């Protein structure tokens, strides 16, 4: 086995590291903890965070890539498979490898298209053939299918329930040992709201565990969401799309943040010609319709990648570089909004008395910027980062449809929708691929939107709060 670190993998791990370091940093400082405690009190925010972290787990597992070693042919020299797999692929190996011939409906035991088959006595019949894997353990699907599905779903749900209960007991014990129960807040109102949050989290965890248990148990012998044109499991495709969505939503932000922060703050603080130049740059960039700018840049990138096919060892590496470039391009087109906001806020801040006092004391500009201005604009950065995430996930689907999105071999919501688009016109209709892509995307984006709202409510200083 040879470990492969793709560019976007590195980016994701860098982001995770940044996340952990800042969480540790914030934990040390009560004044930075305060808004996060407000987020923790919002039931909607916490439940959506739970859903988001599930997605994140899938995404991170899907970012640990490797190439399996092939059975040795050359003496002493191991040859690696050209196919790049991830830890997630390994985990759900059954889903990945059990491909059918073509379309099959969710939880079906038969193929969706008729085929000529030879019966044992030599006659040729045109009928729906049995699936190779879906429901293959049944003797007579017509009769047994329904009962078996229900039985497996219930068993799986019970398993999920049991698992989550064990988890609760363990978590409760750990909590009791380290800290007083979170249910006993200081004030009465506070106690009630955090009790509400705990209850909401509890219920959400139970529901999710039951759902995951049932689906996991069913997925071992069925195609829960059906299969697509080339017989791939749609559930597998949807789960794989999560990573692409997360990469687009987060890496893009990582790329644009330094520009927006540096230029926005500099423009607001130094004014004069610095401001003029930076304003000129972002007016130029934002005056080009963003889809067109993205399209133009992606077209160019495609040409470059095609001309230098020898740069990449595997097809996955090439698709990955394309994904990274898409993030870069999206970052370049989307930093202007944040930059403008930061410039405005810095313009306001630099007239504040404490900044003027610092200037009068002869504190250097660099130090004023990093010590006084930067911490006071961070809430804007945070809010816009979380708000941008869902917009970027949605944008990926549209761009892939237009043909300027991710590489066609990359599994993403956009490529799934694009491939499934024509299936609506088929008769009988193939709806499951589209429906799963849209519903996975809806859950991800909805959770992100709700979490973003909770974060904005907690961090926005314009909202007056009694406790502040």
């Amino acid at each position: 086995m040879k470990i492969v670190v793709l560019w976007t993998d590195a980016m994701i791990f860098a982001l995770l590291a940044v996340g952990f370091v800042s969480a540790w940093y914030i934990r040390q400082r009560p004044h930075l903890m305060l808004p996060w405690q407000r987020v923790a009190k919002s039931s909607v925010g916490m439940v959506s965070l739970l859903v988001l972290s599930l997605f994140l787990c899938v995404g991170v597992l899907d970012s640990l890539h490797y190439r399996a070693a092939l059975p040795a042919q050359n003496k002493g020299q191991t040859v690696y498979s050209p196919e790049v797999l991830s830890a997630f692929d390994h985990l759900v190996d059954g889903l990945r490898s059990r491909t059918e011939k073509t379309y099959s409906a969710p939880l079906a035991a038969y193929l969706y298209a008729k085929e000529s088959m030879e019966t044992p006595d030599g006659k040729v019949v045109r009928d729906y053939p049995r699936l190779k894997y879906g429901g293959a353990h049944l003797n007579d699907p017509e009769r047994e299918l329904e009962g078996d599905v229900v039985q497996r779903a219930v068993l799986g749900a019970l398993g999920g329930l049991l698992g989550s209960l064990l988890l609760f007991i363990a978590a409760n014990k750990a909590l009791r040992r380290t800290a007083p129960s979170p249910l006993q807040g200081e004030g009465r109102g506070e106690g009630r709201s955090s009790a509400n949050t705990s209850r909401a989290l509890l219920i959400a965890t139970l529901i999710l565990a039951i759902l995951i248990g049932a689906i996991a148990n069913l997925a071992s012998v069925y195609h829960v969401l059906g299969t697509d044109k080339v017989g791939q499991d749609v559930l597998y495709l949807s789960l794989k799309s999560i990573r692409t969505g997360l990469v687009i939503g987060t890496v893009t932000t990582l790329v644009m943040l330094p520009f927006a922060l540096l230029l926005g703050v500099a423009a607001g603080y130094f004014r004069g010609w610095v401001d003029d130049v930076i304003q000129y740059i972002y007016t130029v960039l934002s005056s080009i319709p963003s889809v067109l700018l993205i399209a133009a840049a992606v077209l160019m990138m495609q040409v470059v990648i095609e001309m230098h096919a020898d740069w990449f060892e595997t097809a996955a590496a090439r698709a990955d570089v394309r994904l990274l470039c898409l993030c870069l391009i999206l970052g370049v087109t989307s930093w202007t909004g944040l930059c403008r906001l930061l410039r405005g806020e810095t313009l306001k801040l630099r007239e504040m008395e404490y900044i003027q006092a610092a200037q009068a004391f002869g504190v250097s500009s660099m130090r004023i910027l990093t010590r006084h201005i930067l911490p006071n604009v961070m809430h804007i950065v945070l809010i816009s980062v979380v708000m941008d995430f869902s917009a970027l996930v949605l944008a990926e689907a549209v761009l892939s449809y237009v043909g300027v999105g991710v590489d066609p071999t990359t599994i993403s919501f956009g490529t799934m929708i694009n491939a499934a688009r024509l299936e609506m016109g088929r008769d009988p209709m193939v709806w499951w691929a589209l429906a799963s892509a849209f519903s996975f995307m809806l859950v991800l984006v909805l959770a992100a939107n709700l979490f973003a709202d909770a974060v904005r409510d907690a961090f926005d200083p314009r909202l007056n709060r009694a406790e502040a």
Partner: protein
Amino acid sequence: MGLPVRRSPLPLSRFKSAMIAYLIRRILYAIPILIGVNLLTFALFFVVNTPDDMARIQLGIKRVTPEAIVKWKAQHGYDKPLLFNARAEGAGKFSDTIFFDKSASMFVFDFGYSDDGRSISREIVTRMGPSLAIALPSFLVGLVVYVSFALLMTLFRATALDIAGVALCVVLMSVSGLFYIIGGQFFVSKLWHWAPISGYGDGGLNTLKFVFLPIVIGVAGGIGSSSRWYRTIFLEEIGKDYVRTARAKGLSEMRVLFRHVLKNAMIPILTGVVVVIPLLFMGSLLTESFFGIPGLGSYTIDAINSQDFSIVRAMVFLGSVLYIVGLILTDVSYTMVDPRVRLQ
């Protein structure tokens, strides 16, 4: 005279001349921005992808002789240096280049010819109509629907109705725009046969039934984010002192909302709305390509797919011009709704 007269802050003649001076300055300021836009697209298209590469792509990758490339470049005007012509004299050092040739004509809206030999300017003029036929009604109907929905939520603020409305908005804005189009086409056209799936008709009356569905979908797609945004604006206004005064005078809540809040909320609404009006000409990329409407949006998509750079460049330029026009219009409209704002 006794009657209260509402006056503009400046005498009319001075107001007019200030406005004209302002407009001239803004238009002059737009020129460097447009040059920047051109430089950027130029760099994207020609520095990464040299004229030789373009010729090779156009002529087919295989069996290209150097002579054929030279000929193609001469035919399409790519046989000059890119940015700086060292061999020319005086100003010709800059003007006798591909960049100057290809950009200078854009400033007088002469976009040249597409790769299949048609005049881009003529295409733009003929395709503007269908684009507007979709974009303008979507915009107007949308504005009315979003503002009324937001007003309704504001009227019932902090009740279950308001919370349900906001929740609905969040769900609606989390749905992919592609879903509105695909779902709309499926239900309205395929299942219920209320409107044709796609097409544009002959431009006369029968076009009405073709544009119905795209307009409805265009309006529906924006309900979530726009209504929520307008609701925030209204709620911000409603906390202000003048609203309390109006209520203290005994005005009904409806009157307060419609006569006072709506008027004052116009200023933040205008910032977001006026800037997109000129861009309506560009049409919508997605809607037009899904519904097969022969507008500028589908023109652009086709150009992207066939890698016709002259069309993409023309559309980028047109888009930036319209955006700048939108910015100027925004400022001008401020002075009309808010007498405190003066043009400097």
